[in-house]
């Protein structure tokens, strides 16, 4: 199976990855090879098999509904590319 340029562009958009026009052919070729490779799974007989949910068959542990986190905004925002007054800045989203 070969992924088309449009399919690759669509996947890239879903994944929020910019892809240059001159990269698409190579990305499509390599992704197609991977998709072909994992396509081997189609032949495996799995009609009565439940999909694995956890490697040790455990259920998600729950914790008590108590406040455990403390506010350390300034420390965490030290890694942010752009902040002002404790807010993360992004390009304007409402015109």
């Amino acid at each position, binding site marked *: 199976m070969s992924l088309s340029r449009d399919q690759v562009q669509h996947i890239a958009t879903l994944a929020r990855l910019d892809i240059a026009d001159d990269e698409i052919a190579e990305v499509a070729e390599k992704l197609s090879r991977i998709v072909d490779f994992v396509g081997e799974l189609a032949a495996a007989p799995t009609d009565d098999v439940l999909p694995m949910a956890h490697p040790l068959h455990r259920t998600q542990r729950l914790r008590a509904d108590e406040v455990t986190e403390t506010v350390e905004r300034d420390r965490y925002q030290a890694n942010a590319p752009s902040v002002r007054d404790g807010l993360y800045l992004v390009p304007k*989203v409402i015109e």
Partner: protein
Amino acid sequence: MAADDHAVHALNLAELAQGLAAGDFTSRQLTESLLARIAGRAAALNAFITVTADQALAAADRADRHRAEGKAGPLTGLPLVHKDIFCTRGVPTTCGSRMLETFVPPYDATVVERLAGAGTVMLGKTNMDEFAMGSSNETSWFGPVRNPWDHGRSPGGSSGGSAAAVAARLVPAATGTDTGGSIRQPAALTGTVGLKPTYGRVSRYGMIAFASSLDQAGMITRTAADAALLLQAMAGFDERDSTSVDEPVPDYTAALDAPLRELRVGIVRQHFDAGLDADTAKQVRTALGALEEQGATLREIDLPNIDLSVPTYYVVAPAECSSNMSRFDGVRFGHRAEEPRDLHDLYCRSRAEGFGAEVKRRIMTGTYVLSAGYYDAYYLKAQKVRQLIADDFRAAFADVDVIAGPTAPTPAFALGDKTDDPITMYLNDIYTIGANLAGLPAISVPCGLAAGLPVGLHLVGPHFAEERLLNCAHRYQAETDWHLACPEGYA
């Protein structure tokens, strides 16, 4: 007497612990000696991303003080390095990516915290494949690591810097992470010991996530006994990791010497087929013979679905990767593109610039297999096959105690050899991926040289059988000396 006089770089953790306890050298002397060796040799291998000399000396002084006060534990003052995937408070943590080139974590990973709490001295952070996605260390933004056995070859990956540093005697031990073989394959390719514990045995808190249902922290050392020492401090429940398992932690060192008389070893028929290098097969068969000489019985077993483990992995791991990587948005931390036109452009360009080709490939593969119309055919199907593979292991462990075979299909390959074809690279992990899919513990132990390059013996056990694996590996090392083989120029 100074640490240099004891050739401390050649000593393993257990030997260094004895030297510290006996007062042969202090942790500061030991640390200074290894930092000098790292300064002289690490650059040629590109094994480190960050060397933390100042912090190391401060930690060494603390360890020496504790020892003087009679408060030393088994790991007090022992040096190690952390894979740069573990968050270290105040110390840059890049995960081998441009995306996190300037990231300084505000907290420590549980693994880092526990090992520091036990008195270990961190000398630095090691190079790795970008976000642990790779089997050769060539996907690192900081360039490939070189194998100390042959600088033209890869040390394996993704924990390649950790493996190269331990193999080159720059440090006695390093942490690593293993999602599909990322501890065991580099251990095999560099002649070191690599242990991946049971899924959930060691906390993943603060370990930057790649594929959360497969990721597990472990270590690379030169001996199984050293791996036991470290696992003792690393293992155990952590409420900050929702998949951390609340099971008692046994005394890993206590069981090391148990005889192998009753041990039943399963040999997977499919693991000795055409894909395996002939020299590697020979070394592994000799190693199996050595286990037999110690009283173990060998029997051939079948894992009927094991040939599907690599395709299964390359659906499940990219799917989880695409979800985990979505946190890198150029807003809260990580790389941000200059002058974005709008929010969509900010996301798309920050991610395109911050991630390398392999990471993008996996994000896109994962996005595809999870997308509308393909989810059932790929993701759901893969999770079913994954269950079949896990069932095969469970059935096998009814008759055998461990499963043994080669860790990797060939010894270390040349840098650049497999970078053009992702599938060829993925197939490097053909023998290791099954343990991740089934959540099983596994270890790689040096078991010979093929054309002058190290070969690893791979042992897989049932859930929580780390004791048995370490025992088996330790008994093997007690009768062989492959773990003492040192790359030329690094003795």
